[in-house]
């Protein structure tokens, strides 16, 4: 088992009237991309900001990189890289100036060129921050988080508000971070993002962590299984075959769907379905994080992160 870099124990953050984080416990391991996923207001940012030493928990404890959250704040701050939500830098400073300022604060000799090149910003190094596109600004934010060569990076909703192209660019950046051997702690309300990027994920709703597991296990256990649909003339025949392998069979006018918990079960049914001949079409729908979330939270989340 890899080393734990974040250990959270029964963390609570209470404001006057609301409990933003309601007793959550989880670990993050060395070298992985861990995602905290949930709708807006679920407590993702509060949790991350507590771990970044930007907020004080009401109760509970946590260790970050082996240091105690409450007593060794400076040790933690020195070793982590942070990109806050709705992040901003000095607007009239250039990309390079902003990145090197952070290096100065961390008292490290900046490998500015290397970092900027890794994130495709070397050409734009002399452009002022406020003149950059949203996607480029996020990349500057990642550079600023990365310049101190931290062991652990916190990226709070790094792609919120970006267009699809910029989001994909940002994903590439995050994958690069993993290749560099960094542990990445991510928050997001985009289920596809979490699925694409993370090794492990925790689903958080209303300040409570519902489940934490590898993305693979989350989907296989909570995704609601694999759907196999048959469309066309032979739905009657297909229904009979499907019923041999699963109890969950639904029949519409010209479509029949069977749900399977595992791929093995589905593949047995599929093998027989393919022997029916012609005149129909088979569709296999693998579950995704959207399904996981919908099943666990009882709701879906829209593009803006709101619960539906």
């Amino acid at each position, binding site marked *: 088992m890899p080393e734990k870099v974040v250990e959270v124990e029964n963390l609570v953050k209470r404001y006057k009237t609301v409990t933003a984080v309601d007793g959550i416990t989880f670990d993050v391991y060395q070298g992985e991309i861990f995602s905290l996923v949930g709708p807006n207001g679920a407590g993702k940012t509060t949790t991350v900001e507590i771990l970044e030493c*930007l*907020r*004080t928990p009401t109760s509970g404890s946590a260790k970050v990189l082996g240091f105690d959250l409450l007593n060794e704040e400076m040790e933690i*701050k020195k070793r982590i890289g942070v990109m806050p939500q709705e992040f*901003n830098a*000095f*607007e009239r400073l250039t990309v390079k100036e902003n990145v090197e*300022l952070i290096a100065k*604060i*961390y008292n490290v000799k900046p490998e500015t060129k290397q970092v900027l090149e890794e994130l495709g910003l070397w050409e734009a190094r002399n452009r002022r921050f406020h003149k950059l596109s949203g996607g480029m600004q996020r990349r500057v934010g990642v550079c600023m988080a990365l310049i101190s060569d931290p062991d652990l990076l916190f990226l709070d909703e790094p792609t919120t508000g970006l267009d699809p192209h910029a989001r994909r660019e940002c994903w590439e950046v995050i994958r690069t971070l993993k290749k560099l051997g960094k542990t990445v702690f991510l928050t997001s309300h985009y289920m596809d993002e979490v699925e694409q990027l993370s090794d492990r994920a925790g689903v958080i709703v209303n300040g409570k962590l519902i489940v934490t597991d590898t993305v693979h296990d989350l989907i296989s256990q909570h995704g609601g299984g694999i759907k196999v649909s048959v469309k066309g003339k032979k739905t009657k025949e297909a229904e009979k075959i499907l019923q041999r392998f699963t109890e969950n069979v639904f029949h519409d006018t010209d479509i029949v769907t069977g749900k399977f918990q595992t791929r093995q079960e589905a593949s047995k049914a599929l093998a027989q379905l393919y022997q029916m001949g012609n005149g129909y079409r088979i569709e296999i729908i693998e579950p995704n994080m959207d399904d996981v979330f919908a099943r666990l939270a009882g709701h879906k989340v829209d593009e803006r992160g709101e619960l539906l």
Partner: protein
Amino acid sequence: MRSVPSVFLALMKEWLRSKSGMFFSFLFPLMLLLIFGSVFGGTGSTTYMLHVQNFDVKDGEPTELSKIFIDVLDSMEIFEIKEIDPGIDVNSYVKENPSFEYSYRILKIPKGFEENIRGKSMAVRLNVVVGTFTYIEENFSNYMSESDLQAIEGGREELSKWKNMFPSSEGAELTFLADETDMSAMAVRSILESIINAFNNQLIGVEEQMMSIKSESLVEKNMSATAYYLPGYIAAFIMTNGIMGATSVISELRRNGTVKRLAATPLPKRSWIMSNVFQQTILAFMLTAVMIIFARIIFGVSALPNLYALLLIFIGAVTFASIGMILGGVIKDVEAASGAGSAIAFPMMFLSGAFWPIEMMPSYMQTIAKCLPLYYFHDGLRNIMILDNLSGSYVPFLVMGTLAVIFIGIAIKITKWKEL
């Protein structure tokens, strides 16, 4: 503290590259200096201020003749007469009560003024009588009896003895003091001379000098209104830069998440505050330099800040930048923060007497002025830079120093570095 220079530099660049920041910090003050300096700086008065120091006092009351003389001067519309107590040393009085509205011209009425003029007047009259007697004696002796002649001779001798009883035959000598650079002093002296001549004539009706006037030079710092108020302008704009500039910068950086980004680094809160205060201080020095150069070129003001002035400017910049940090730290909304900044800065600017004498304002407003930190700031700065009066800056140093410590303390306490 190690990262203060880097953060300071970042703040400085951010400010230098902001057009509105530059306008507000430099151009706006310079425009006001230019306008106020031109409007309030004129010396086109048609009456002359004349200070009179009457030493001719008997039993605590001015002698009658000296009173009449002063009344005559006062009745001339050309003079505005102000009396100075005879117990005062005028040279220090002038230094302690500098004025930009007028130059000091002082007329000293000597002790024994009345006595000497009466004496001289008597002597003149007696001379006339003695002269007449002599003339009669010389020209008409042939027509007179011996006894008549003896009577006249006796009377003449008696009168000559009398004449000797009036010791000052020189009359009264007034002293006129004015600064050598005072262009109007000559005019004032000529006016005084013609008044004195008329006075002489009326006293006796003969062309004999009862009263004369001599000039002495008065060492007065010659100062224009612009010079007098330059420290006021400097102080006022250091104040606005701090209270309005720092407030909006801080609240904007807080709103847009830059502060949160910095708070997530190992940068200590104190260093962040120090960097901001340091930036405001440098800004204050830059503003001072620009104002002084500008005032020199446009208005010929030659004031230069010495070490004490620079120290006070530093203390002032710290005080007002701290107030800015407090406002920016308390008020989240950027618009509201800069609104609060101007709601404090503008009334303070005009109430504190930075641009005009607070004596012009009603007394309750003067009381308000003396409760404002800006009053002490510009007052101290003026005492050091313009009046060469270091002792006049002790209270301002004390007040401003105390406020600087208090406000920076509150700023450190109030600036949030967590739960942003």
